[in-house]
């Protein structure tokens, strides 16, 4: 069973790093974090254009970097295909030339036909003789992908590959990458600062902050069960609160929490039956009580309050509610815009939401 990518990196300076990444063959792992979090540095450490003080980079049975064994293969001897943020195409070569440039490992006469084949795979047939300056942003990105694949890489590294194109092109490229990756058998690392992009494309997400890998999990795990406040903030879970554990309900087995005087229940089991706890509830688990008909789960953790703000983005209304028992701890949730209209949600109106107990996630206790 070869092909798995394993990376550990550690250093204090110049860029602090404490990273652990594992990626299986055929898996796409998103390395997600804000700019300056060290994503690109980690990618370069894998490709070999950056050398970390300590660590290990192994692909399958092959060691590319090991501070312990004093091994450090130069980038041209690491079979890593990389798509740069700016694409970094060779401007003096045609599309075909760019792809052939990465085929040094193949006999000369096989390069041109193989390069044309790969360009066909990324749907660029007919544009082989264009130079990068004569291609659109999306076409350039596809040449960059083709060039990265031309090397027959053992890992594929994508460094913010969608940041330089417009929104419409980006969504089309998402689909293309999703199609393409099904045919690829190597570990793939996608570096991005965009949560939606990571959730859309990746099998798993590793959250990175200040050079440190904080949490790795499926998109659902990451977005609903952040393991720290930092991750919660990075995955945009804004409903983050402190509470007091009261104990366990004997019948349901649920954890009882005192939230500033309001008792709420969580399916999750606390490590300890007493003490302070930090908990989150992603806004998808906050359910609005509708006027016209009872909602599912209305009996779970009802929180009455006053609507502070309604912000419509596209067809979704993002609502801020100030609970009666603790107006200083607003609850964020979103509903389809038509639901917000039908229920007359607007600033100053009374409304009640339920915090679904299975979505309530306990972070840590002190």
């Amino acid at each position, binding site marked *: 069973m070869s092909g798995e990518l394993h990376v550990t990196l550690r250093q204090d300076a110049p860029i602090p790093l404490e990273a652990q990444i594992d990626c299986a063959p055929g898996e796409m792992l998103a390395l997600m974090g804000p700019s300056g979090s060290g994503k690109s540095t980690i990618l370069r450490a894998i490709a070999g254009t950056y050398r970390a003080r300590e660590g290990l980079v192994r692909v399958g049975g092959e060691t590319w970097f090991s501070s312990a064994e004093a091994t450090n293969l130069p980038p041209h001897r690491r079979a890593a295909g*990389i798509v740069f*943020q*700016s694409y970094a*195409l*060779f401007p*003096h070569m045609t599309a075909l030339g760019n792809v052939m440039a990465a*085929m*040094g490992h193949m006999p000369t006469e096989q390069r041109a036909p193989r390069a044309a084949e790969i360009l066909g795979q990324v749907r660029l047939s007919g544009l082989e003789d264009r130079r990068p300056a004569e291609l659109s942003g999306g076409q350039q990105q596809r040449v960059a992908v083709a060039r990265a694949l031309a090397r027959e890489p053992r890992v594929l590294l994508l460094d913010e590959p969608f940041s330089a194109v417009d929104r419409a092109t980006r969504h089309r490229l998402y689909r293309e990458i999703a199609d393409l990756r099904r045919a690829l058998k190597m570990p793939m690392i996608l570096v991005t600062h965009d949560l939606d992009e990571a959730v859309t494309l990746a099998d798993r997400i590793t959250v990175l902050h200040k050079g440190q890998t904080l949490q790795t999990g499926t998109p659902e795990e990451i977005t609903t069960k952040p393991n720290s406040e930092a991750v919660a903030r990075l995955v945009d879970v804004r409903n983050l609160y402190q509470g007091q554990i009261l104990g366990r309900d004997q019948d349901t087995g649920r954890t009882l929490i005192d939230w500033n005087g309001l008792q709420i229940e969580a399916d999750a089991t606390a490590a300890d039956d007493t003490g302070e706890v930090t908990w989150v509830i992603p806004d998808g688990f906050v359910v609005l009580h509708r006027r016209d008909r009872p909602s599912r789960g209305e009996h779970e953790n009802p929180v009455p309050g006053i609507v502070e703000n309604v912000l419509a983005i596209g067809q979704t209304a993002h609502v801020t509610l100030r609970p009666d028992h603790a107006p200083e701890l607003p609850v964020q949730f979103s509903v389809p815009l038509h639901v917000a209209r039908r229920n007359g949600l607007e600033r100053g109106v009374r409304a009640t939401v339920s915090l679904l107990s299975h979505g309530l996630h306990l972070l840590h206790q002190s």
Partner: protein
Amino acid sequence: MDWTALILSMQLAGVTVAVLLPIGIALGRWLAVRDFRAKPLVEALVALPLVLPPTVFGYYLLVAFGAASPLGQIWEQVFGQTLVFSFEGLVLASILFNLPFAVQPIQRGFEAIAPEIREAAACSGMAPLTALRRVELPLAWPGILTAMVLSFAHTLGEFGIVLMVGGSIPGETRTVAISIYDKVQSFDDSGAAQMSALLLVISLVTIALTFAFSRRIGRRLG
């Protein structure tokens, strides 16, 4: 018309460019890519001939390579003639004196290549020399061309340092610029006028061709 001097100047300029090219590429790329503490000092040393009078430069060359100096004596023992007042001496002086004209445009040329392009070359499996040949040199080409033309034209026109370390030996160290000077002193005004005009035309044409050429390259790279 002193054809011997003209041919000599062309040869001097040609040899200077040929020797300076690899030096300029190595030094220019090093300065463009690497960052180290002593870099400003190295850059200043390279740029020194731009501000230093040729006479000062010539004086130090005489001191360093004259018949009395250890280097000059070693040279004389090996080659049987002194380094100063010889064509080889002029080549050496010319190389040193043209360093900024060769290194600076080449350095700018390499600096204009985005670091990601260099990384992309390595990550495409190109060994450093392959990457240099296939990616970096073609992209730095306008700078390299400028460096070659400037060094060539500047060597053709160099006077002070040739006068200092070269003397005016026909076919050996009497370059076009020196020959013009000699012609003026021997009251050969028409000879001086012809050679000056020729030098003017050669310099102008060379530089104009370079500008036209680098514009064409610039368009190609878009």
